[in-house]
């Protein structure tokens, strides 16, 4: 296998050439900073209502206006960023963890273990997960951690398949056979030989999973099953915005815009990453 450090620097070069991806990364960086600093930079607490004020369009006191209960939209979007991004990352991490482990084991050991493990994935693939998540939310109530686990549990399947595929193609490479001959332990094999080489596709897929997860969370919130008010994710903000969009359109437009821009950024960055790491599928 080629010298991995030059592989990475090649990839980085390609990535930096991709303007959309760079733009996306930039936006994401700003977003993370804003979300992290939200408790300090938000002008109002997210639950503070001003009933006498009610809904008002953007003004000097309220940059993006207020909602029906007089809560500052700008602050709520900032706090919402924390929640939405948190869900995105945690759920993706859960999916990553399960998926990578599953795929590694199935791909490396092969044979009966592989068949059984992948059959399970096939069966689970056939289940309409949206339906189950809804049911889970209804049954167990709106619990944040349950939400993470439920969403993560949906997304790990594809990750497992991808990882397994990668492992299969790596398995017969010389350096793996050599390590096996030297008697390297399985755990060491995973950690030091296989994992670094599949990091690329994992990173790509993870970056592309985050927006999926965020979409899923916001969809659940829209149905009333996600984050419980007064805490709000972008999904609940959009839901509230839809309900009053006729009279107070800013309540829909600003959260919607923020959400969309974030997803764009994530997708551009993820696509860029994928193109950078796998020149065959890029245009150049």
């Amino acid at each position: 296998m080629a010298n991995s450090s030059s592989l990475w620097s090649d990839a980085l070069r390609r990535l930096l050439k991709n303007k959309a991806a760079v733009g996306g990364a930039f936006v994401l960086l700003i977003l993370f900073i804003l979300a992290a600093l939200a408790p300090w930079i938000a002008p109002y607490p997210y639950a503070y209502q001003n009933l006498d004020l009610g809904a008002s369009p953007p003004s000097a006191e309220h940059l993006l206006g207020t909602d029906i209960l007089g809560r500052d939209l700008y602050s709520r979007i900032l706090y919402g960023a924390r929640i939405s991004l948190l869900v995105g990352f945690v759920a993706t991490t859960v999916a990553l963890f399960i998926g990578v482990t599953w795929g590694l084991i199935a791909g490396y050991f092969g044979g009966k273990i592989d068949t059984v493990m992948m059959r399970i994935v096939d069966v689970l693939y056939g289940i309409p997960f949206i339906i189950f998540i809804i049911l889970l939310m209804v049954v167990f109530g709106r619990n944040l951690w349950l939400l993470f686990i439920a969403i993560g549990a949906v997304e790990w399947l594809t990750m497992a398949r991808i990882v397994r595929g990668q492992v299969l193609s790596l398995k017969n490479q010389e350096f793996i056979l050599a390590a096996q001959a030297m008697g390297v332990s399985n755990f060491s094999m995973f950690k030091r030989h296989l994992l670094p080489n599949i990091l690329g596709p994992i990173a790509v897929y993870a970056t592309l999973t985050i927006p999926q997860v965020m979409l899923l969370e916001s969809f659940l919130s829209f149905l009333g099953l996600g984050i419980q008010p007064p805490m709000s994710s972008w999904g609940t903000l959009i839901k509230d915005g839809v309900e009053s969009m006729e009279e107070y359109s800013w309540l829909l437009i600003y959260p919607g815009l923020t959400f969309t821009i974030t997803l764009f950024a994530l997708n551009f960055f993820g696509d860029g990453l994928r193109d950078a790491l796998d020149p065959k599928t890029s245009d150049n």
Partner: protein
Amino acid sequence: MLGIFFRRVLLAIPVLIAVASITFFLVRLAPGGPFDADKAVSEQVLKNLNEAYNLNAPLSEQYFDYMSGIVVGDFGPSFRFPGRSVTELIMTGLPVTFELAIYSMLIALLIGILSGVVAALKRNTFLDYIPMSIAMIGICVPTFLLGPLLVLIFGINLEILPVSGWGQLPGDKILPSLTLGFAYAAYIARLSRGGMLEILNQDFIRTARAKGLSESMVVTKHAMQGGLLPVVSFLGPAIAGLLSGSFVIETIFQIPGLGRFYVEAAFNRDYTMILGTTIFFSFMIVIFNLLSDLAALWLNPRSRDT
């Protein structure tokens, strides 16, 4: 190919059984039962109601009764609508959801394939970037945001299209189909673009061009068949996704389809209805995945997937 077909069918059966069983036990875990109402139901009456629906029998007995009923297509009576069977209710909602799915699919195919093919042909020009960016919108803007936005523009500000309903006001089928279709158009655009790019680079295309065939002939007769293969494989999961994902659209636009029935049944603890729709959706998903895989195989026997 027949072997693969049978293997898939065989695989489908445990899936459906698993789905039915998990759902069966899951719904009964939910707090709140189907008969809880604002006006408190006395213990006596609750007992009577449970009797009437066989809910007092031991769980295992209920489970076997239910499963044996499903095999002959009997999903039981609806809890919420006495006198109506779940099958009947599903049959009322299904044509609506199906119609929505078909219209959306047609829109998705039209916009998607057009954009993807044009983008592939005019690679790295504006005609590539613009359709692909618009396609990105479909991927990045959730349906429950896109729908209301379209409603805001066309229904409320311009007032040329109705904002909800299905068949109640003229033109009310347009916005929901457009919203749902656009989301899938995005994926189809990317897939067709990718597929076309791969095909267009191949030798036989260069040969065809060299032979002097017109560009449109080259594209339509030679390239598209192979180039659109990924789209065909995607169709199955897409339609299945349309069916089950329709409940966001149906909720926003108040369409009396199967998706909305499902969400309402879940909220109302209408056990039999939840089970019936879940199993039905799973069944549809399995069938459509199977059909599209078969179609893909038939079109290109080389793309075998294990």
